[in-house]
């Protein structure tokens, strides 16, 4: 016996905790991916990133309502379409935000931080006046609900599995895009040397705008995933922003793989801890650990030393 659980229990605890850690991991990672692209590649602190996630969540909600109203027969499949829509909408908004706001603030990271915070306030208020302050949640297709029980003690929620699937796919796409595609090449070139990139004929402005928009789009997908585990309110996204930033910084701003690794570490640590201590303490301990590690290793866990 340990903590009053039998060892077989502890076994299933580990499985299920590991799993609920994984679903936290999914949301964190999807959020962090977008942020890592924006922060890591462009050095922009996007405090409104959470609100882009919220945009995604509300998109799902709206679409589910529309489907319910007009194409009830389509109910089972709408979610897949909705995810893409969530991406597109968040992407578009991000595109304009970059054009109107961000591009005027490059190389002033601390100022982008303040400006985007202001942006987040405005977006939250827009959500509130459009959708009302009450928490809303889309009607999920039935196949997303319920759970899968390999053993009587172990019980894995389907929506969790689904979210994880999305996460894997998106992560793969983003990483491929960044390291294999022409666009990725331009992005990395621009990050490393804006002037040279410009000199060799890369339209850095365009690259920046795309990068930012893609980052936001991914956040939109995060929102979509989020709706399957919790409800959506005007401030849903903002509750994740700090954790997300820690994930990115912890992973070493520049490297996406680092982001993945750190998202995994953090979410697992948190979920295991919250099982054995109180909710709040679990979180506190995790955050503290991150900060301490960051102090010992400011450049982040997984980034390599670079010549300055």
């Amino acid at each position, binding site marked *: 016996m340990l903590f009053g659980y039998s060892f077989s229990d502890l076994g299933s605890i580990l499985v299920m905790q590991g799993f609920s850690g994984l679903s936290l991991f999914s949301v964190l990672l999807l959020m962090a991916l977008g942020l890592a692209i924006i922060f890591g590649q462009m050095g922009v602190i996007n405090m409104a990133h959470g609100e882009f996630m919220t945009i995604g969540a509300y998109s799902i909600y709206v679409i589910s309502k529309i489907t319910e109203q007009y194409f009830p027969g389509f109910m089972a499949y709408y979610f897949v379409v909705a995810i893409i829509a969530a991406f597109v909408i968040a992407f578009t908004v991000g595109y304009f935000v970059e054009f109107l706001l961000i591009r005027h603030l490059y190389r002033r990271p601390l100022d982008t*931080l*303040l400006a985007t915070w202001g942006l987040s306030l405005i977006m939250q208020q827009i959500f509130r006046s459009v959708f009302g302050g009450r928490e809303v949640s889309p009607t999920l297709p039935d196949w997303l609900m319920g759970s899968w029980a390999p053993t009587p003690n172990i019980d894995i929620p389907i929506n969790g599995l689904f979210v994880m699937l999305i996460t894997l796919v998106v992560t793969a796409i983003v990483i491929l895009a960044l390291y294999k595609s022409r666009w990725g090449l331009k992005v990395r070139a621009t990050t490393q040397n804006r002037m040279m990139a410009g000199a060799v004929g890369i339209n850095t402005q365009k690259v920046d705008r795309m990068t930012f928009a893609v980052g936001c789009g991914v956040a939109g997908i995060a929102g979509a995933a989020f709706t399957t585990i919790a409800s959506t309110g005007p401030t849903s996204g903002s509750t994740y922003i700090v954790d997300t930033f820690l994930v990115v910084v912890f992973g070493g701003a520049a490297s996406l793989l680092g982001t993945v690794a750190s998202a995994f570490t953090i979410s697992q640590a948190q979920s295991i801890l919250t099982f054995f201590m109180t909710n709040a303490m679990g979180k506190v301990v995790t955050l503290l650990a991150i900060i301490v590690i960051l102090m010992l290793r*400011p450049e982040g866990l997984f980034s390599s030393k670079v010549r300055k």
Partner: protein
Amino acid sequence: MNTLYDRWLGGRQGAIGLLLLALLIFIILPVFLDIYRLNNVGKYLTYAFAAVSLVMLWGHAGILSLGQGIFFGVGGYCMAMYLKLEASDPASTARQTTPGIPDFMDWNQITQLPLFWEPFHSLPFTILAIFVVPAVLAYIVGAAMFKRRVGGVYFAIITQAIAAILTILVVGQQGYTGGINGITDLKTLHGWNINTDSAKYILYYINGVLLVGVILLCRYILSSKLGRLLLAMRDKEDRVRFSGYDVSNFKIFVFSLSAIISAIGGAMFTLQVGFMSPTFVGIVPSIEMVILAAVGGRLSLIGAVYGALLVNYGKSAFSETFPALWLFLMGGLFIGVVMFFPNGLAGLYQTYLKPSVDRFLDKFTRKSSAVKPAVLSEKKEVAE
């Protein structure tokens, strides 16, 4: 050289600015506002401490802390703990399971006062703590980060995370902290009822005097070589380092200083509002403190005060009349200040008002204002 005039008051410009501010705080507002509104102004002025601290830390030293709320809170909670202990004497808490301890502890099945509360029975200790605790906290955080050259964005994010942690802790450990409700129902300071009108007037004036005092102190520091070093560090850190200075020590110093200043504000907040709760120490208030400084002009100490007054007044005025509009306005404020008025009110004053003010003043004062370089450089900064 005339140290008092030039260094403490900051030359003619500084002296005038300070005079006007003092006039506003000590005479105009008290005359024209009833005690209820004056008490609110007093509340706004406690945020001014945080704003001033950010002018030093962010404006001059280029270190953006998103955690000033932490120190504001530490100061506030220290004061609140003392007042709470005084308010929970056995007589007035007779109804509790354990009389003599704060009510919220009783509700959380705590049967005796936690050790770290004990010393807060003493007022001197409390006042000491208001200065020392934030300073030590800031020193630890600062030493850990600045020695390792963690700066800029990373510092901002980490301080924000620390703010988050503290909020979670305060809310989670409600047996010791009062949780989300905070420490409420505070009555007397060393036997003196802080809820009477006369008390509120007195507290308002104490607050004002402290604020002016802090501004003078900051002026003095900025006009010293230390002040010039801060600017130098902000712009060319390496050069300063390779001129034989241990940059981190200077950063730690200014961070700790800013922590103490904010804490004073927090303590005065508790005294004037009558309670303290986590809602004033978290992430959001911390960022709002930054915007106060930004609106005032991140390099102007006086500006910070006006920023605090203006934004907070706007907040309560607007949130009454057009609640929805207020958030838009606040958001717009952040964006606008960053994009169009990076030097805030002070900047506007420099560009539009100052010339005419100078002409006006020169009529009266014979001696042309021979401002010391320190002040000079600040001017240039602001005018940029």
